[in-house]
């Protein structure tokens, strides 16, 4: 018997008889005979125990925090996940339902989305948040396309900071290529308002920043945002949600579009996916934004309820004129984020951000005392910073690997010239002892 197929031999026969058929193959006679039922070179079915044994063995070939201390970040972060997040997320009612097309049978999912939209809107101080996008990179790409549509598809220039995650920039280029958009921006460093003025002209639809930057820098975007608006373009910032427990939210300084990666809100690393694409806009852009939206309304008796709304933006109604092709999103990841933000609350999220901030500061301060190393960030940073090493960072990472430490990301992965630079990430999950071990190991090189 094949698992998950409940038919008994007798039931199968009765059902085939009902249809006047002799065999299962007869159900497929419309498939051209020459290609019907090809040979399949796949393994034989395995028992549940065998599959789990095999997967445990495979997973044991990966290094995990139990076996190694890792200071990797660069877009995927290990923060504490309260047990209640997993417990709620495991409920079949959330896990095995689908997009709430039938609201009367999906009020749980719909209210949870509404609460997610609310918690994120409060965190960003933005008017409207959608029900999620694939990840921070795809959300950024679609944010740029939104700005392009807002310009009446006239402005094809995009000014993008060198502080945007390199994979996000590449993703945005994939999405925007067919529209003929062109990206400009300094290769290194960050623009000051004056430099920006020289890049901005009437062909630019948006300016894209990152908070913090890929290198961890915390920048004040208010002047850039104002300058961008003076030139008639939109300002888009890709944010890290945890940092916003400490720093001014983007809505406070007039950002038009906010995107970001929400994996850090109660979701495991899972080798980089699923992530959570955060997508938020000012009210004026609402009807042009991509993605699903849950909205509050009432039934015939006036009872409060929720529906998916503003569907005429979407592909299933508007087809080629839709604001995006997105259909399935990251609903379950957004649910986890809503549960996480509820559990953390006002005090907890600030504590996580504060612990993360001070531990990264402590790590950098200790490294500054090592003469062979240099912390490259000139101003304040959050969670991550760039460490210039005396040798190639790859080589150092390899040597520390044998001591059970992954010291960070050699930046040569994305910037071939930056051979000696290491991007070091520290969160509340790192103990002082682990940080001190990292410092001692680096000092010993």
């Amino acid at each position, binding site marked *: 018997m094949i698992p998950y197929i409940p038919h008994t031999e007798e039931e199968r026969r009765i059902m085939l008889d009902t249809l006047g058929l002799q065999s299962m193959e007869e159900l497929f006679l419309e498939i051209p005979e020459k290609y019907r039922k090809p040979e399949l070179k796949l393994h034989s079915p395995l028992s549940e125990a065998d599959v789990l044994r095999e997967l445990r063995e495979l997973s044991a070939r990966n290094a995990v925090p139990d076996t190694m201390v890792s200071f990797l970040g660069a877009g995927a972060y290990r923060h504490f996940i309260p047990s209640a997040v997993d417990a709620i997320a495991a409920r079949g009612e959330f896990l095995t339902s689908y997009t709430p097309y039938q609201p009367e049978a999906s009020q749980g*999912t719909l209210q949870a989305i509404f609460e997610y939209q609310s918690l994120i809107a409060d965190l960003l101080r933005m008017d409207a948040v959608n029900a999620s996008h694939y990840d921070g990179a795809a959300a950024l790409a679609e944010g740029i396309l939104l700005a392009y549509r807002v310009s009446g598809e006239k402005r094809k220039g995009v000014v993008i900071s060198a502080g945007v995650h390199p994979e996000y920039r590449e993703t945005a280029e994939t999405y925007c290529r067919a529209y003929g958009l062109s990206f400009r921006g300094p290769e290194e460093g960050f623009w000051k308002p004056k430099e920006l003025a020289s890049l901005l002209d009437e062909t630019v639809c948006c300016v894209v920043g990152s908070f913090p930057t890929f290198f961890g820098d915390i920048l004040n975007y208010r002047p850039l945002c104002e300058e961008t608006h003076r030139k008639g373009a939109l300002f888009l910032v890709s944010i890290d949600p945890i940092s916003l427990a400490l720093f001014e939210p983007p809505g406070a300084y007039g950002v038009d579009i906010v995107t970001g990666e929400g994996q850090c809100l109660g979701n495991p690393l899972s080798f980089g996916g699923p992530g959570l694409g955060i997508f938020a806009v000012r009210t004026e852009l609402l009807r042009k934004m991509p993605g699903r939206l849950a909205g509050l309304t009432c039934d015939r008796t006036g009872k409060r309820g929720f529906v998916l709304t503003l569907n005429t933006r979407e592909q299933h109604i508007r087809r080629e004129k839709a604001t995006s092709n997105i259909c399935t999103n990251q609903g*379950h990841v957004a649910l986890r984020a809503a549960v996480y933000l509820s559990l*953390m609350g006002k005090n907890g999220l600030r504590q996580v951000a504060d612990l993360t901030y001070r531990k990264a500061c402590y790590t950098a301060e200790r490294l500054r005392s090592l003469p062979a190393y240099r912390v490259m960030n000139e101003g304040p940073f959050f969670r991550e910073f760039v460490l210039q090493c005396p040798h190639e960072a790859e080589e150092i990472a390899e040597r520390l690997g044998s001591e059970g430490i992954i010291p960070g990301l050699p930046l040569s992965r994305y910037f071939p010239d930056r051979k000696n630079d290491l991007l070091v990430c520290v969160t509340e999950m790192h103990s002082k002892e682990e940080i001190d071990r990292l410092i001692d190991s680096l000092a010993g090189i």
Partner: protein
Amino acid sequence: MEDTKKENGAEPFIWELSSPGRIGVSLPLPDVPEYPLPDSVPLRADLPLPEVSELDVVRHFTRLSRLNFCIDTHFYPLGSCTMKYNPKMNEVAASLSGFSDVHPLQPESLCQGSLELLYRLQEALEELSGFKAVSLQPAAGAQGELSGVLMIRAYHADRQDTKRTRMLIPDSAHGTNPASVAMAGFTAEQIPSDSRGNVDLSVLKARCNETVAGLMITNPNTLGLFEENILEITEIVHRAGGLVYGDGANFNALMGYLKPAQVGIDVMHFNLHKTFATPHGGGGPGAGPVGAGELLSDYLPGYRAELAGGERYILVRPSRSIGPLKAFYGNFAVLVRAFAYIRQMGGEGLRAVAEHAVLNANYLKHRIEKRYRIPYHRSCMHEFVASGDLVPGIHTLDIAKRLIDYGFHPPTVYFPLIVKEALMIEPTETESRQTLDAFAEALLNIAEEAVLAPDLLREAPHNTPVGRLDEVQAARDPRLNRRSDKDRTDTKN
């Protein structure tokens, strides 16, 4: 929000449970000194998040969960979504620490297990579909579609064949098809279906010329019918110099019975959350890997896992890749579940999946076709479309809502667009004959009720937490979060 607060026993919002100073989590005490926050960047004054206990949160979300229909509690025959049972084993597999706690940028030597899983999943999908290569990166079906169309675009561009800007799409297609085409800078052009529900060959022939970039085809199509002329279709498009995109949304019907690459499909996406039993999660995450044949495999997005020197798994960007569609390598946790499923089913099991999915759909169609009009008189594949035009004044929506009273999640409604009052029903292979019989009985009863007591349908559902909701009001005056509602209260005051 006073007007709607807590009335009629509605579940309150999480922030309505808030009590200043209450905490829901215990975090470690600082073990490093305090560092002053910078003065060069404005700080946050107020963080308006709820202050609730862990029990508040658990009760709130548990109560919310109970307002949902789901596969674990109800038959959920949502056409084209393949709501089959999601095995619990796959959840255990995805949450193994050795998968869930792995960072995507770990040195390759420290994540060989994840890379091997990617490699073997690619291999399995390649074998099932006949494609030369698969990229696992796309996060969902629509992103897979966009990848495929961008690949076709890049292929023509590389040959300086830039006149090709028209993409042909049958009128039965999912809305994501034309939307993806628009995002790839092409024009979407609709091809009608013929009287048997197939692509109209004469129209297709007439529309194919040197400006055609390609055709997007879903097979079986959204009517649940196999495109009988698939060989002619792909040949016509290829002869005109176009390429054929296969929408793999309905691949559940074909596993072990047809390899799409063998009938002229050049590139196709898989929906792992449909065909390979990964949970839909109330709207995602899914996974939409893309497979491609000889002409297009070098254009695949993102990275592919490869085996170097027969002993070490590495990640490689295909030589002419269209680039990444997201960060990193795809929705890995979803990929783990699909891989676990494939390992358990084996080739024989996956073929049985297709057989029983098709058997169940035909059986259910047979059980209801005396009362519900079936627009195409053919054997169906894994799903079928019926029409809800039972009696004047009763609509498909009424039937759908009445099904909720009977304890069934409704089918997909009003899609595909080419069938009036469409009810698109996909039972999947994991449902027993008893469940199908009960569902058929419910539909037949409802057909009786439509005649004898039509208000039962018009006013349905009757036993749900809320009745039919005012969607017009929701769209006219969008209330999308707590902030937009606060603004409303502010202006009122």
